[in-house]
């Protein structure tokens, strides 16, 4: 049985979260998945290790869900983040949002990933051929202006 906001240590099946948010009044569903990328700034990643403060992370994910339902009434959200060792291409995070109209589904979904990167206690370690490092403070990297 899945929880709508959860940290898991198994591969993520996105369909579970898309199904959870679908309702007869929902005309639009957005599903975002964040994947382990092989190359970041010219450095080749072998794999990643994610760690979380699980109970707090699940609480914060649920808070993000609440924020979304308040900011975009009529939406429903589900979020899961995987921890442990992840290989290139694996899904680290899935965010599913449904809403009657598509614009809200896009906006609320993007809001969720921004908030996750700001405040959910989950950490990523990148393992390269010649070393490894815990990544932190990513939200300070320039990513273009928020719309």
């Amino acid at each position: 049985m899945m929880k709508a906001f959860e940290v898991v240590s198994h591969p993520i099946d996105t369909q579970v979260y898309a199904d959870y948010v679908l309702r007869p009044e929902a005309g639009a569903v957005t599903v975002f998945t964040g994947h382990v990328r092989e190359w970041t700034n010219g450095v080749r990643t072998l794999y990643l290790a994610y760690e979380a403060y699980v109970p707090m992370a699940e609480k914060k994910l649920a808070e993000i869900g609440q924020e979304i339902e308040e900011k975009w009434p009529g939406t429903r959200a589900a979020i899961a983040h995987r921890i442990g060792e992840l290989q290139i291409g694996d899904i680290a995070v899935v965010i599913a949002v449904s809403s009657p109209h598509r614009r809200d589904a896009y906006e609320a979904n993007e809001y969720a990933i921004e908030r996750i990167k700001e405040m959910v206690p989950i950490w990523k370690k990148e393992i390269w051929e010649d070393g490894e490092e815990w990544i932190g403070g990513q939200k300070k990297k320039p990513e273009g202006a928020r719309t």
Partner: protein
Amino acid sequence: MIRIFYFAGLRELTGTAEETAEFTGKTVADLMQWAESKYPGIDNGAVRVAINEEYALPDDVLGEGDTAAFIPPVSGG
């Protein structure tokens, strides 16, 4: 007694994931000062402290049985 958790790079810095200490009635600022003297470098300006799974302020007071966590900059997603 309170429980104290260390995560990610801080766990590697302290060499421990969890310990207990006597901080009942003291503040988060006191806890941070104690941690910095025990594990130099932990108070690097980017670390947040959570009490019972909520981000806390320096003046917040710890209660008996509370759980404190040192939260380095997060990098989920």
